[in-house]
């Protein structure tokens, strides 16, 4: 609808609005990426329908310095680029006529279609306003993206930092290390701060977790990636920070969380120790301020946001009872294990899958019994754990001319976080504080040349992350750690008379009332001081031209210099592990000396390694002239990676990561209100620096085990602690590692293929609904694997077969080296040649042997339905339902069951024997995923009441039936095919926000808020114990639950001991908590 403004006292001709709204064509709609968006359109003559050339089009917004002006070309098209996200008014000037379209809300990475028809025959000066809903569908992109605005995060209940909104994307769900997108693990995402890569360098996790108070908009891209995006096999998160404007805006706030309900205890069934942790209180405050330094020229934005949290950690002690010892048929010389319960607890989600998965009843079966336990409340101990987090931001937007702008910004966080020791261990003696600092800085130049047809975007970025977990609260933490892998007694460590091992019953059987397994004491143990730095230079060049329709051609490249320093050490120089046999194993860092023998590193191992990343991309966004409404995005991206060792020498060079990106968009409404889209793309992983640090640093671990000449530790029985000062391990002879990993001569990059198709439609009421299908599959992975049962490893692409040409090339190379050795007399040259020769021989042998490994698979199918109502008429909603399945044999770069996070060198493919039964639903397989987030404000004159709701519901995750692998140990053997254990329960959660809003004069606004998280205190388990047994056992190919009868230990042949904790929760939903807040903004 179009309305005339009151400065012209003429009635608008009947039907004019309708005529004006008769949008004619879909002209230039270009897709860009990064931190800004575009507005394009076609201006026509209402009377003739012909394009109008020379119409002046301006875009103004509080988010924009000055205004941006363009002229329509001979085809009537205009395009205004590099607009910061915000609400715009688009004005069209032609002769004396002025038409304006307010309320155009532009998000980052969007291209909106704003067309206009002008009554050019009217000579008198008039201004018309288009009242019809502004176009809101991005008709240029095929990206599946979720835009989370500050409007939404301010009105709905969320946490205080960026990580709390990431799971709002359709299909996304939290996993133990982050948020999973598209079936990937939480370690496969790319995090951008204002377009600059801020992903953790070492393992690919989220590194910078900034305050939502500083973030204007978070863009989460989960599919349909444009060529500008890469280095992620999960999702891309692009956080756009706030900026200043011509008006002073800012605010100050204070939020306080006075309590949360009690959390559940977590601990192993039948063992003595349990722990629970809950948030005791939290508060944060801060301010932000933005405004002009020089109006329309220089804007600033600054903020400071400290956050404080106190958790309460409690540890309780339980004892087994021995009331029935004389009724037990056991032999007098056997220890009494405790009174058993008739029916061991079996979680309902296990029982409902198949009762045969439940641990069997006691019946004298001591291998799987569950025991009667009694609490000893007098020994419950607790401590408070503090977390402090200071965040700060400073930003300058400088407009040199309307065509040349500079952005300078810096964000930082400073965190200290107290951590306790393990539950089964010296929980309170091993307290420590981790200090972490992150820095993100950017300098950006945006320029337009050649009558704005050529645009330049040049950015310099820096991301730094420093982590020091070694600040000890107690000096005891600096000693050597001792881990007793046996089931021992708490009496050895805590002065609890009730735990003393004693004789019970008439026959005086030995009884341990307080069994604990894997108890850890002494010192902290493994520790690391980590510095990560990334310098980025990125250049984008855009050029616009016409050829069978408008084209927007973009070329860009970026270079990243990534650096990781990892200083790892054991407190007390080494770790002691008391093994099941009672023998002690000593673990210490070492490297390999020139003679090949271990060189001990009592102070730890320090390595700095680097990786250089480059990417080039070229993309054309073409509005196909003959087919109105059709846009084709075709591009190609080339990623390169050089992985360097500690000497700076390239060990892995990935140079052929060439990926096509194709997308089609068709606006069938031809008004910018709809789109049908489909896209295909291949996205390569950026291999994190963990592989440099672990494989190309000469890191080595010495394991010394008794008995051996000169090696000695006093024997400790159950109920005793080891005095490590009496131990002596002087003579290591065997080194694990200490040399560089061998790399396949034809190693290629890891990637996923992504296909999306869907429809999006603006149904009115500022609401867009969409339906789409997404298929993503992993194509190739990079992993270390051993073709000979763990003797030798090679970093390769499992599933690939050895190429005979490569074999011949290596054989030729070996022969050449042999010839050179024969010809040279210089011993040093000979030595170097021999080393090279040995490396090539090993590479050839291992490369030939990689063929037997099965190809990795990870297939993700998703049907996604979304509703997005942007904030208007006091109401906003973001809702989605995703039905998806994720299955295959490769979960990703994180192992959910062992907790190993060594991207690309995990244990997953180490042995082919490890892959048995791994095909099936993957750990992130959550078929149903529902989310509703929204807010509604009930206005009362100058005040209002806002109700915000955040609802989520997820299917549980597959439960496995795991055992210990004969070589790789606990949780590595899939006894039954993946997913045979059923699924954890459905998880639902409601968060509620109630706010009283009062508007004062001068634009000052007061918000008083009360937020309840987990409104109904739902306590579903998030993760459960997947270990059916800790005994060594090989997978049962095609096994069924009925096959779990009569399993035997692979080593001893004895019946396996079933883990009585199998299926029991290891983490629950956080309990109900309350947060109160006050915010004053202007």
């Amino acid at each position, binding site marked *: 609808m179009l309305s005339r403004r009151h400065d012209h006292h003429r009635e608008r001709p009947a039907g004019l609005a309708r005529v004006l709204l008769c949008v004619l064509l879909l002209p230039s709609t270009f897709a860009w990426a990064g931190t800004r968006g575009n507005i394009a359109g076609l201006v026509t003559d209402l009377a003739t329908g012909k394009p109008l050339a020379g119409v002046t089009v301006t875009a103004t917004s509080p988010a924009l310095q000055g205004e941006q002006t363009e002229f329509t070309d001979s085809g009537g098209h205009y395009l205004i680029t590099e607009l910061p996200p915000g609400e715009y008014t688009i004005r069209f000037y032609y002769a004396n006529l002025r038409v304006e379209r307010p309320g155009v809300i532009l998000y980052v990475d969007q291209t909106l279609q704003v067309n206009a028809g002008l009554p050019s025959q009217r000579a008198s000066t008039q201004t018309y306003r288009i009242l019809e809903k502004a176009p809101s569908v991005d008709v240029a992109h095929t990206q599946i993206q979720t835009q989370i605005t500050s409007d939404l995060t301010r009105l709905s209940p969320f946490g205080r930092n960026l990580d709390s909104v990431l799971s709002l994307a359709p299909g996304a769900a939290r996993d133990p290390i982050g948020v999973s997108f598209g079936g990937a693990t939480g370690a496969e995402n790319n995090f951008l701060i204002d377009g600059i890569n801020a992903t953790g360098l070492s393992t690919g996790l989220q590194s910078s977790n900034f305050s939502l108070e500083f973030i204007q908009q978070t863009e989460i891209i989960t599919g349909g990636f444009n060529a500008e995006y890469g280095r992620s096999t999960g999702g891309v998160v692009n956080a756009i920070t706030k900026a200043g404007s011509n008006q002073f805006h800012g605010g100050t706030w204070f939020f306080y969380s006075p309590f949360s309900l009690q959390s559940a205890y977590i601990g192993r069934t039948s063992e003595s120790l349990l722990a629970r942790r809950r948030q005791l209180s939290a508060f944060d405050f801060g301010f932000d301020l933005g405004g002009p330094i020089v109006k329309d020229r220089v804007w600033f934005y600054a903020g400071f946001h400290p956050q404080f949290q106190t958790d309460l950690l409690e540890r309780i002690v339980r004892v087994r009872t021995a009331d029935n010892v004389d009724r037990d048929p056991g032999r007098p010389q056997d220890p009494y294990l405790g009174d058993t319960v008739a029916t061991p607890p079996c979680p309902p989600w296990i029982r409902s899958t198949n009762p045969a998965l439940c641990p069997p009843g006691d019946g004298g079966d001591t291998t799987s019994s569950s025991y009667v336990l009694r609490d000893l409340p007098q020994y419950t101990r607790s401590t408070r754990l503090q977390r402090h987090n200071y965040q700060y931001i400073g930003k300058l937007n400088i407009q040199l001319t309307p065509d040349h702008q500079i952005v300078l910004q810096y964000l930082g966080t400073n965190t200290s976080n107290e951590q306790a020791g393990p539950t089964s261990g010296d929980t309170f003696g091993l307290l420590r504080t981790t200090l972490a600092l992150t820095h993100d800085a950017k300098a950006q130049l945006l320029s337009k040349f050649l009558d704005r047809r050529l645009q330049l975007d040049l950015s310099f970025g820096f991301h730094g992350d420093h982590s020091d977990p070694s600040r000890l609260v107690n000096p005891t933490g600096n000693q050597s750690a001792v881990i007793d892998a046996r089931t021992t007694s708490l009496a050895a460590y805590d002065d609890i008379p009730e735990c003393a091992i004693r004789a019970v019953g008439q026959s005086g059987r030995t009884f341990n009332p307080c069994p604990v397994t894997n108890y850890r004491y002494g010192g902290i143990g493994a520790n690391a001081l980590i510095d990560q730095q990334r310098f980025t230079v990125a250049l984008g060049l855009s050029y616009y031209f016409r050829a069978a329709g408008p084209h927007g051609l973009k070329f860009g490249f970026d270079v990243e210099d990534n650096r990781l320093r990892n200083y790892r050490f054991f407190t007390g120089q080494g770790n002691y592990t008391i093994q099941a046999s009672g023998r002690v194993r000593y673990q210490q860092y070492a490297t390999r000396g020139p003679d090949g*023998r271990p060189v001990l590193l009592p102070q730890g191992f320090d390595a700095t390694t680097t990786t250089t990343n480059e990417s080039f991309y070229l993309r054309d966004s073409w509005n196909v002239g003959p087919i109105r409404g059709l846009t084709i995005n075709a591009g190609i991206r080339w990623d390169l990676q050089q992985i360097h060792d500690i000497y700076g020498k390239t060990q892995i060079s990935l140079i052929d990561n060439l990926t096509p990106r194709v997308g089609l968009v068709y606006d069938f409404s031809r008004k910018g209100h709809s789109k049908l889209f489909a896209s*295909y793309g291949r996205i390569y992983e950026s291999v994190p620096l963990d592989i440099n640090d672990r494989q190309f640093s000469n890191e080595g671990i010495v394991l*010394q*085990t008794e*008995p*051996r*000449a*000169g*090696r*000695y530790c006093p024997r400790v029985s159950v109920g005793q602690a080891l005095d490590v000062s009496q131990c002596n391990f002087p*003579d290591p*002879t*065997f080194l694990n590692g200490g040399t560089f990993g061998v790399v396949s001569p034809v190693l290629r990059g890891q990637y996923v*293929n992504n*296909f999306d*198709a869907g429809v999006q439609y603006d149904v009115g009421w500022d609401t867009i609904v969409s339906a789409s*299908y997404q*298929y*993503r*599959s992993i194509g190739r992975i990079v992993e270390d694997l051993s*073709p*000979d*049962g763990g*003797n*030798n490893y090679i970093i390769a*692409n499992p*599933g690939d077969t050895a190429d005979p040409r490569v074999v011949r090339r290596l054989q030729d190379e070996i022969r050449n080296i042999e010839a050179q050795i024969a010809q040279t007399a210089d011993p040093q040259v000979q030595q170097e040649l021999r080393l090279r020769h040995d490396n090539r*021989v090993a590479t050839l*042998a*291992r490369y030939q*042997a990689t063929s037997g490994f099965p*190809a990795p698979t990870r297939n993700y*199918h998703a*049907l996604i339905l979304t509703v997005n109502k942007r904030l208007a008429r006091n109401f906003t909603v973001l809702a989605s339902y995703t*039905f998806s*399945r994720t*299955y295959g044999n490769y979960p990703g770069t994180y192992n959910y069951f062992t907790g190993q996070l060594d991207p690309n060198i995990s244990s997953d493919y180490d042995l*082919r*024997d490890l892959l048995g039964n791994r*095909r*099936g*639903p993957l750990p992130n*397989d959550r078929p149903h995923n529902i989310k509703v987030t929204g807010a509604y404000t009930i206005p009362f004159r100058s005040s209002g009441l806002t109700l915000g709701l955040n609802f989520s519901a997820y*299917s549980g995750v*597959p439960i496995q039936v795991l055992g210990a692998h*004969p*070589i790789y140990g606990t949780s590595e053997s899939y006894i039954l*095919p*993946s*997913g*045979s254990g059923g699924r954890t329960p459905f998880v639902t959660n409601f968060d509620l926000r109630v706010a009283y809003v009062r508007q004062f004069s001068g634009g000052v606004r007061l918000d008083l808020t009360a937020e309840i998280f987990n409104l109904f205190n739902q306590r579903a388990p998030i993760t459960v114990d997947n270990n059916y047994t800790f005994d060594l056992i*090989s*997978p*049962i*190919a*095609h096994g069924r639950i009925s096959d779990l009868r*009569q*399993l*035997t230990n*692979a080593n001893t042949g004895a019946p396996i001991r079933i883990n009585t904790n199998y299926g029991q929760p290891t983490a629950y939903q956080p309990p109900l908590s309350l947060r109160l807040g006050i915010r004053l903004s202007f």
Partner: protein
Amino acid sequence: MRISRSSPHEYPTLTLGVLLHLFLLCGAGCGPVGQDPEPTGPLRILHIVFLDQKRGLNPDLLNNQPGRACSSIEPCLPPLQCGQLVFNYPSNGSLLTVDVPDPPTGDICHDPENILEVEPSVDSVIRVAFDQHIDLTGLELPDGNLDPALFTLTTTTDPPIPIPGVVRYDRSGSPDFSSDPNAFPYGPAIVFDPAEPLAPATEYRITLDTPRLRSRSVGGSAIPASQGTHRFTTEPLRVLDYLRCPAANGGGCANVSEFYFAFPDPEGLDPPEVAPNQALAFQFTADVLPETLDRVRVEDADGNLVPARATPLILDPDSECPPAPARIIYVVPVDASGQPSTWNPGSYRLLVAGGASGAQARDGGARAVGDHRVDFTVTDIGTEVDEGDPFAIGVNVLVCP
């Protein structure tokens, strides 16, 4: 069944049917998807493997180890032809003959002249691994073992002598692949665990009750009767190899597990090397009876008898080790009083007298043991032998096997 493999570089295809299928599966409770389908069809024997925990040997009577990887340490073997000679796995280099499946018929082709040698150890178990799980209905005994009639082991003498043992069913393992059949046995399998060691150099016959062995898949069928009998011959008693430390020239090994077995070079070009104060440990192909240890002799380079004593390897100072057959023999020089002494530098020869030692004492066959010798040298290689070194002469900090 082999794991189906797709090209790692395939481009995605839109499979609405797949999604619909998955959705319907989810309607039934969102059960597992993507698992390998359970194989169907006639039950087949894929492997008959002899597992020897002590020695790490695992010859497959059917020579059907398709997935065993190879490397610079384990060279790839070419596909075998019927009756072809192969080197045994992993390191002793002894020549063995095998029966290999006849590809056209799928039956076993037997070569009566060249039959497989396997080790006559009590630690050896025989695993008959199938491509599918077996229907155990009516086959299980109350104690969880299988009816012994399903698997019988006898000598090929007339009349045949049955070998007692336990027959059980092991569900674990994959029929497709094992990088080390000792650590990851092929499965599912019928396992025969002999109650006593097999005799050296003796021919045996395995007989399976084929009509009763059926797959558990719907309509599962029995294995062909032609696969019901298999023969093999055990090795004679001889020195198999000796314990060697990789760093023997520099300072010894960290513990016993770091020693590895090395095959004595038949040409004597690279003899075992020990320090004067170190014992030498030899491994035999079968357990040597304690009462026959005096048949192990040591001669010097001139052929003179060197006073020496052979004892079973014992590695635990806290254990009281009863005399028992042992495969690893620990040889030390002794002085005139019979106490452990040290070696004089020089060349030596270990001799195992034929016809008088080993398990042959039980079965009375002199053919079980052949004369055997191993050369070794003693040099002052500077090894410091400390307390706790299992190979230090006189310390005897050893453990029961």
